[in-house]
């Protein structure tokens, strides 16, 4: 209509004079028309805008449909190199609807032919109940599913479920833990990170290296067999950031079969078990004494006679019956010397020092099996004396390893962790001893392997250092004679330590080859040596010529010996 009636009539048609009312009407019409065309212009501009240009608020349909994602109900767990350690696979679970089932007895008989492990009587009882849903069997294999389908029994059906699968079976069992049939974490990493694994899609990246784990597990198993031990534990830790590269506790279990796990295989000796560690504690005792400034490396103590305290007598295992310097006390693992050293430093300082290096608190490592250390209720002088050589205070191997890491890496304590730290992340840690003390401890540890009780831990080219530990096991309230806990804690390469390697054998017995000895030096030290020579190349540690003058200078330590009242200086 608007098109037919021009807004602006031509002049020549304005022959009769236009009455003022009509004039007013026309101008009103003009305004209205202008308003309408403005509105239409806006609408068409908006139309062009909406159809031709993408706006931010607009939902992106095209993108949301173009990415089909495969999501499992529980995230994968991978090792530091991306090897799969735990994953979830789809399985079919068989259920029945007894209300629809025609003949329960026949169904049970037919099913038992296909699934022979079924309990016929129990199943029959369940199938005759007045219910509409019962599980017959969870997680069938594809073949079993096919055979059940072929039976054609009405009232049976499958439900898709997921099942946790651990491709490496028992190898990483004590770290990973396991899940129940409904995929809830019951132990280890699976339990500690249960919520995260259920909500996250990206895999959980552990610090574990499966190759190192295998080397450690194999060597420990060989040692347990050879010395008829009842168990073992082993840890490899990166001293620069606290990443645990390997943790083994024997015996271990297959997490794929959670129903078959025995309670003794479930016990984690590396983090849950707390033990009196014995002489490996002398690392802490010596570091504490040297770092306090009260004792210097040139000092020494008289170790001629055993110390009698109330009903205890403290003796030396490798007794020298003479004055011993600090390096000698460490090298010969003298209990008498260690006690005198600890007493000179004092009870309060000892306690504060052990507190600082995480000995008095449960390990912060991320699994659910963590043992709390057993600490004396009242820290008296007698406690300080026994603690100096690793008795009267029980800790888990993980606590010991983290503490020793701080002693050798330049004096920085890093909390041990099972999670891989992103590359380039800063590892702050916390200074616990001076770099100078740490250097002294490194030389002392090297001395033990080069000339002392730890010689069996040597691995040519990797400059191993370490300390042996042999402790009688506490059973009930007394020490069990002949039941030993033999351990060795080592580090390599000693001139710039990268990794701590710890091995412990539970109740070993000596063999002919070891002349009946079952001490740390005979039983655990060889394990550490073998493990280091296997994992060194894997971890990319450069080998050194151990007898090169530059290396010998770095590891040299002055030892003062006193014979017939004269002080002599020997240098190793």
């Amino acid at each position, binding site marked *: 209509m608007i098109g037919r009636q021009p807004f602006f009539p031509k002049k020549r048609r304005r022959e009769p004079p236009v009455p003022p009312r009509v004039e007013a009407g026309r101008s009103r019409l003009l305004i209205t028309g202008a308003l309408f065309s403005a509105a239409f212009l806006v609408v068409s501009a908006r139309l062009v805008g909406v159809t031709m240009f993408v706006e931010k608020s607009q939902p992106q349909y095209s993108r949301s*449909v173009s990415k*089909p*994602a*495969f999501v*499992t109900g529980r995230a994968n767990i991978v090792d530091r190199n991306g*090897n*799969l*350690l735990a*994953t979830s*696979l*789809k399985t079919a679970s068989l259920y029945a609807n007894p209300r629809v089932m025609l003949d329960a007895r026949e169904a049970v008989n037919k099913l038992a032919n296909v699934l022979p492990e079924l309990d016929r009587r129990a199943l029959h009882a369940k199938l005759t109940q007045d219910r509409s849903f019962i599980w017959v069997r969870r997680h069938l294999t594809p073949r079993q599913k096919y055979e059940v389908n072929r039976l054609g029994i009405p009232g049976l059906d499958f439900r898709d479920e997921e099942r946790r*699968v651990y*491709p*490496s*079976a028992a*190898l990483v069992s004590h770290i990973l833990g396991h899940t129940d049939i409904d995929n809830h974490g019951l132990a280890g990493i699976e339990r500690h990170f249960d919520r995260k694994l259920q909500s996250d899609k990206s895999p959980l990246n552990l610090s574990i290296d*499966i*190759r190192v*784990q*295998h*080397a450690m597990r*194999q060597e420990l198993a060989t040692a347990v067999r050879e010395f008829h031990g009842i168990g073992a534990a082993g840890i490899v830790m990166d001293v620069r950031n606290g990443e645990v590269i390997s943790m083994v506790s024997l015996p271990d279990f297959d997490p794929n079969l959670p129903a078959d796990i025995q309670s003794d295989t479930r016990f984690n000796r590396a983090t849950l078990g707390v033990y009196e560690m014995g002489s490996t504690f002398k690392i802490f005792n010596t570091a504490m004494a040297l770092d306090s400034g009260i004792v210097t490396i040139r000092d020494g103590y008289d170790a001629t006679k055993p110390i009698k305290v109330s009903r205890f007598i403290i003796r030396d295992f490798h007794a020298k019956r003479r004055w011993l310097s600090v390096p000698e006390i460490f090298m010969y693992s003298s209990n008498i010397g260690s006690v005198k050293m600890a007493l000179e430093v004092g009870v309060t300082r000892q306690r504060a020092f052990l507190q600082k290096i995480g000995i008095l608190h449960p390990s912060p490592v991320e699994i659910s099996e963590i043992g709390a250390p057993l600490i004396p209720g009242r820290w008296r002088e007698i406690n300080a004396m026994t603690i100096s050589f690793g008795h009267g205070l029980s800790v888990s191997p993980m606590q010991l390893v983290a503490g020793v890491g701080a002693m050798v890496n330049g004096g920085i304590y890093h909390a041990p962790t099972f999670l891989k730290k992103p590359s380039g992340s800063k590892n702050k840690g916390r200074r616990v001893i001076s770099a100078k003390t740490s250097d002294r401890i490194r030389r002392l540890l090297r001395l033990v392997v080069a000339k002392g009780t730890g010689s069996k831990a040597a*691995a*040519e*080219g*990797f400059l191993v250092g370490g300390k042996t530990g042999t402790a009688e096991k506490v059973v009930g309230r007394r020490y069990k004679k002949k039941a030993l806990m033999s351990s060795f804690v080592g580090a390599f390469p000693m001139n710039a330590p990268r990794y701590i390697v710890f091995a412990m054998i539970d109740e070993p017995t000596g063999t002919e080859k070891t002349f009946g000895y079952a001490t740390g030096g005979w039983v655990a030290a060889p394990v550490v040596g073998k493990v280091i*020579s*296997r994992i*060194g*190349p894997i971890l990319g540690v*450069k*080998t050194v*010529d*151990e*007898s*090169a003058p530059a290396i010998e200078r770095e590891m040299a330590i002055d030892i003062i010996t006193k014979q017939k009242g004269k002080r002599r200086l020997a240098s190793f």
Partner: protein
Amino acid sequence: MIKRATMIWMLLAIAAGIGLFVLKYEVKSMEGELATIHQKTLDNLEAVHVLKAEWSYLNQPARLEDLGRRLLDLEPVKANQTIEIDDIPFRPVHESGATSYPPAADQVPPLFAKTRRKQ
């Protein structure tokens, strides 16, 4: 009587209707195609997932070690079999300007750490 403009509009409307219809069916069939592809992708992703699990099962260190020992003629590297790159001397140049060629492999002494130190 239908005017020419009305005819044009009607034809346009019919053409638009047919066009819309064709487009709708095309989109529908493409959507079906997309859904099929998505399903196939999901199936393949699941197969990849299962294969990855199998791959890691086959890659267990214990199995690889056993295979390596039985089928390969190789041994783990020992510390004395490695050498720093700086320790390797440059090829000597004779006065005549001719370079000497390395001796045959069986005439080279083994690079043991201890022999190196004695020199």
